[in-house]
């Protein structure tokens, strides 16, 4: 065993784009059967290294120097034709976006076995048999027939596993997994991670796992390489890296996973009238029917309030309606029913009918700063518009205010003349925020503002939000799918599932059991920064996680019914769940009483400790 040379050896790898180095002097080895993780923020060169292992450099880039050996093949010495033999056969690749990797116009099976046929490894029939076995190993439902479907007929998590099957069909020596679960929801991520790991273990696959998420990597990898700006910072076995990070940058990364609380201590006088009050809100898309309900109802009966100078976190997985909620409040989508009141005054359904003062007081900051800033406008132009529009500012005063705004979001004045394409992701998000601040709003709707950013950049944006709140007394509605972010910044939380608010309450709602079964699932699904977390997941939770949101469930009285492990048949699927006040100060929509929930969630026989096991995160 010891004498066996490593399967993959990368030595002194340099990749350049023109004169700019992208990867600098990177060396590592991967032993047969080992899973090595490359971790770093975007732009750290991790994907570039993964691609270099296949002898590929993206357009404009070149592998400038270094040795890449896979098995006994020297990858850099191969001709174009020989590289085609290598790719998909010796080294295969699983990309981040499965949806973009499958051809939507063809059925899944021919796409999965294509690699085996191109390399003439087996007959079509054998390839199909093998693919079905792989589908079963990857815990895909109905493995015998799933290949006959089209890519859009399976869920995102399933498609990602099918992509892995495509990569594994040729029994490659090395599989490169490039952020394979980044685009998935937390509950979906669990099953995909488990399937990946089981396959990797059973087949003793050698893998390179590229990710920015340390918690995910902790579940998958034997060793971790930490990258920054294209250079290796630290290489260590997973456990050692988590317990005793040697490099300061690694410590930074670890710290960003467990964000510090950015909440001001409660100093409210009891029950001030809420700044924004939403009651009985129903909204959706499509033409309305006779009852005034839209064809596709996205939000059902939303009741929630935001107090001035406080932060409400809205949590939910993709498709739960959280962005729709922000757009309804901003007046971009007219609600079908219900009311939105700002300081007790009802708001018109659409922005065009609201007064300019009402518009000024609610600003929206959208997720992706890339498309939220007009690429044809300079930073100054983008910031000046709300100043002119709401405050009729001109000339010198306007210019000074733009400078002040840039200063407020910690951007240098020199950026005023820049265009969005000249800014980094974090800078763009700051400009995006500054544009909302220009209106001097009372409430900012933040729709996934940190989701597109790396953890360290995202943490800086959260710090900025907290600082602005302290200084300017702005309230936020903070929409996110990321629990730890919400926990760090919010005073109160609302958990949305398939368009229903299943739980609302103070920040403690996320810390104390009992909680709504969905909240419990969501919290338990966030990967923890310790090895072995993935193995410790209970069977009940796995079953719940595997469900996935679908809209026909939303028509049930309780949207969570079909996934819930504690459902009472004959009750939950017939009667709408009542709103229940819990002792911890939260309200949930559930038929189960407080004691029943507590018993179900802490498990029988355990000490009735209401504190869940993830306290280290907060």
């Amino acid at each position, binding site marked *: 065993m010891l004498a066996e040379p490593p399967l993959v050896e990368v030595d002194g790898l340099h990749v350049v784009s023109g004169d700019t180095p992208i990867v600098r002097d990177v060396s590592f080895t991967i032993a047969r059967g080992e899973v090595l993780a490359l971790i770093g923020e975007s732009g750290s060169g991790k994907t570039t290294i993964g691609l270099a292992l296949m002898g590929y450099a993206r357009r404009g880039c070149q592998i400038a120097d270094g040795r890449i050996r896979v098995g006994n093949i020297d990858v850099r010495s191969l001709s174009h034709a020989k590289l085609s033999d290598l790719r998909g056969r010796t080294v295969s690749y699983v990309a981040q976006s499965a949806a973009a990797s499958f051809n939507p116009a063809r059925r899944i099976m021919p796409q999965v076995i294509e690699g085996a046929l191109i390399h003439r490894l087996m007959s079509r029939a054998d390839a199909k048999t093998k693919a079905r076995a792989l589908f079963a190993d990857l815990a895909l439902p109905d493995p015998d027939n799933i290949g006959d479907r089209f890519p859009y007929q399976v869920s995102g998590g399933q498609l990602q596993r099918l992509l892995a099957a495509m990569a594994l069909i040729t029994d490659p020596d090395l599989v490169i997994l490039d952020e394979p679960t980044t685009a998935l929801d937390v509950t979906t991520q669990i099953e995909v991670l488990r399937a990946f790991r089981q396959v990797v273990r059973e087949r003793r696959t050698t893998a390179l796992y590229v990710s920015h998420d340390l918690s995910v990597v902790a579940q998958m990898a034997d060793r971790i390489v930490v990258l920054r700006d294209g250079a290796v910072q630290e290489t260590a076995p997973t456990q050692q890296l988590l317990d005793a990070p040697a490099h300061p940058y690694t410590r930074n990364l670890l710290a960003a996973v467990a964000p510090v609380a950015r909440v001001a201590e409660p100093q409210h006088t009891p029950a001030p009238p809420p700044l924004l009050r939403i009651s009985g809100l129903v909204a959706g898309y499509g033409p309305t029917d006779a009852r005034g309900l839209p064809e596709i109802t996205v939000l059902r009966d939303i009741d929630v309030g935001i107090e001035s100078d406080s932060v409400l976190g809205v949590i939910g997985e993709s498709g739960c309606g959280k962005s729709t909620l922000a*757009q309804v409040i*901003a*007046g*971009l989508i007219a609600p079908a029913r219900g009311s939105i009141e700002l300081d007790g005054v009802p708001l018109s359904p659409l922005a065009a009918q609201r007064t300019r003062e009402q*518009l000024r007081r609610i*600003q929206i900051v959208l997720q992706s700063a890339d498309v*939220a*800033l007009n690429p*044809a406008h300079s930073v100054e132009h983008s910031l000046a518009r709300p100043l002119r529009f709401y405050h009729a500012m001109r000339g010198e005063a306007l210019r000074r205010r733009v400078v002040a705004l840039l200063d407020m979001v910690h951007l240098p004045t020199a950026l005023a003349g820049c265009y969005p394409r000249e800014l980094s992701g974090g800078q763009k998000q700051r400009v995006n925020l500054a544009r909302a601040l220009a209106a001097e709003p009372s409430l900012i709707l933040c729709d996934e503002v940190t989701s597109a950013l790396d953890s360290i950049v995202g943490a800086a944006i959260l710090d900025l939000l907290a600082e602005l709140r302290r200084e300017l007394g702005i309230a936020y509605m903070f929409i996110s799918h990321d629990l730890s972010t919400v926990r760090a910044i919010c005073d109160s939380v609302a958990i949305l599932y398939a368009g229903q608010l299943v739980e609302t309450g103070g920040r403690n709602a996320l810390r104390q059991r009992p909680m709504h079964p969905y909240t419990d699932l969501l919290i338990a699904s966030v990967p923890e920064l310790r090895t072995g977390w993935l193995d410790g997941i209970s069977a009940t939770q796995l079953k719940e996680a595997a469900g996935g949101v679908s809209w026909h469930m939303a028509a049930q009285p309780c949207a969570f019914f079909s996934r819930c492990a504690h459902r009472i048949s004959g009750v939950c699927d017939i009667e709408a769940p009542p709103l229940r006040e819990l002792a911890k100060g939260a309200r949930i929509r559930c038929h189960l009483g407080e004691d029943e929930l507590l018993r179900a969630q802490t498990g029988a026989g355990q000490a009735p400790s209401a504190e869940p096991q993830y306290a280290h995160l907060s």
Partner: protein
Amino acid sequence: MSDATLQRRASNRRTGIVALSVVGFWVAIAASGPFVAPHAEGNVVSSDVFAPISTAFPLGTDYLGRDMLSRVLFGARDTIGVALLATLLACFVGGTLALCAAARGGWTDAVLSRAMDALISVPSLLFGLVVIAALGSSIPVLVGTAAVIYTPGAYRTARALAVNIAAMDFIRVARARGERTTFIMADEILPNMLLPLLTDFGLRFIYVVLLLSGLSFLGLGVQPPQADWGSLVRENIEGLAYGAPAVIIPAIAIATLTISVNLLIDSLSSRRQGADAR
């Protein structure tokens, strides 16, 4: 940046400069042609028809013995002037309607788009023939006809661009800010589609030149003794047998103008892509 990219960029730049100077040359001729022409447009100055190039007649003479240089110089105004005016009109009307359709959506979009579809379904040359047969051939009628024929195309292109931009988040932010539709059209959407729109303008300009030349070739375009380049080709077509410059020169003029406009647009748009790739 690699050498290959730099080289590509430099050669792209050279093409752009050459194309720009050819287009500039023809525009200058269109503006100044009548003033620098040695003879009047309709004057028969030689008894020698289809004369070859000589010092007296640098581009030879046509089928009636008129000075070809003067005819081409005068023709430039009719060709480029009419085409430019018609294209500007088509792109302005089409673009404005498209922005309106994209920014308002719903009924406005549906009605405008169907109306344009109806217009686009009429064959363009046939439409031109009918209009000219009814109204007679004059410069305003030609400009108007060409503009109407090419408005739906301009509308379609501009709408496709504008609809994509109107779905972007920054438009959503502008709407949430309470901006009026006209502001969203002019300040938020338009600057983002200017370059592709310019490309479309150039392309459409070429179509119009070709359409007008086609109409003239059929004898329905600019009427004698005035002549655009298309009519020059037609009236001197017999000269082809004698290898007379009279038929080749206007053809070359049409070709150089359309090709250089095309190249100019290509170099503009690839330079823009280069800027985006940074």
